[in-house]
């Protein structure tokens, strides 16, 4: 206890402010999106790509990047709910009833989708961003404040990710606070914690 105390205190004495400020900067910057936005990727590539391997090799870079689909098209409730909304299988089938893919990989992956639809078995996606349960983050408020393209602020440039990975640890409170300080919005605890 005493040791920790001395360390903490010493740090503060010497460069408390500097450290605090410094950490704000560091936690604010994001790593650049990966280079792997080549259009042709096979299922095998998903192994070497960053981020967890999904049951279906869904290409955000294709849908959001090349096809320029709005995030809200699939994540439908993000602008009016605390939850962004995971697209229902029906939403996927809306297009893939007709779009069956060009490359073999695409075909294969889309077939997975159609079979799942046929069996009424929803695809179980691996969750990437899971906010701690004691934090309440209303997506709608943030989309309202930062505009519909603000997703990248936290999630990174998804439009260039063949396979989504975690760019920011959204569970670092500092990550949230930095933004709130920069934008001079409330830092009141009960805004998120209740």
């Amino acid at each position, binding site marked *: 206890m005493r040791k920790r105390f001395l360390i903490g*205190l010493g740090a*503060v*004495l010497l460069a*408390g*402010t500097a450290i*605090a400020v410094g950490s704000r900067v560091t936690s604010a910057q994001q790593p650049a999106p990966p280079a792997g936005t080549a259009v042709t990727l096979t299922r095998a590539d998903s192994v070497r790509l960053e981020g967890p391997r999904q049951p279906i090799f869904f290409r955000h870079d294709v849908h959001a990047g090349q096809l320029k689909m709005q995030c809200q098209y699939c994540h439908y409730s993000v602008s009016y709910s605390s939850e962004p909304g995971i697209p229902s299988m029906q939403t996927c089938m809306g297009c893939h009833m007709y779009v069956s893919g060009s490359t073999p990989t695409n075909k294969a992956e889309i077939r997975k989708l159609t079979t799942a639809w046929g069996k009424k078995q929803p695809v179980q996606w691996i969750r990437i961003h899971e906010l701690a349960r004691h934090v309440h983050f209303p997506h709608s408020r943030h989309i309202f404040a930062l505009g519909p393209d603000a997703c990248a602020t936290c999630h990174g440039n998804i439009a260039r990710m063949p396979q989504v990975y975690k760019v920011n640890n959204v569970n670092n409170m500092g990550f949230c606070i930095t933004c709130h300080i920069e934008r001079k919005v409330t*830092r009141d*605890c009960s805004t998120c914690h209740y």
Partner: protein
Amino acid sequence: MAARHVPGVLAQFDHVDGACDAIRELKATGYKDLTVYTAAANHEIEAAIGDPISPVRLFTLFGGIIGCAAGFGTTIWMSRDWPLIVGGKSVAAIPAFVAIGFELTILVGSLSTVAGIIILSMRKSLKGRPYSPRFSDDRIGVFVPCGADRAAQVERVLVQHGSVEVVRDA
């Protein structure tokens, strides 16, 4: 014991007044850098050696001041860094921080005092000087660094003042 061996004469005394006389005479005849071993702090011998008062108090003083500043500084700065109201009190409530300022004054003050002893004592290396376990018991030891040429004279002075045991340590 990498340190260079210091030639000189080591004398042991039973009686404090004898030791003191010897020290005074030796200093008078221009012998510097004596080392006097005692089992406990002893004013007579301090007086005989006549070194100025230890500067360790400066360490205490500045340590205390730094601690006090740190105590108030950090508390006030931290309270303002993320201002939260509690119990309708002002964010930087100085009276509440007095306790911490005080404790840190004491803490840093005493730690720097300890640092003081260590640093100051290390300034004068005792490496290579002879020592006898009896010094921690009841004997007073006086070591006079000197070349072989002067040793005889030193021994005479020491013996004359009642040293019970004189060793030439060349």
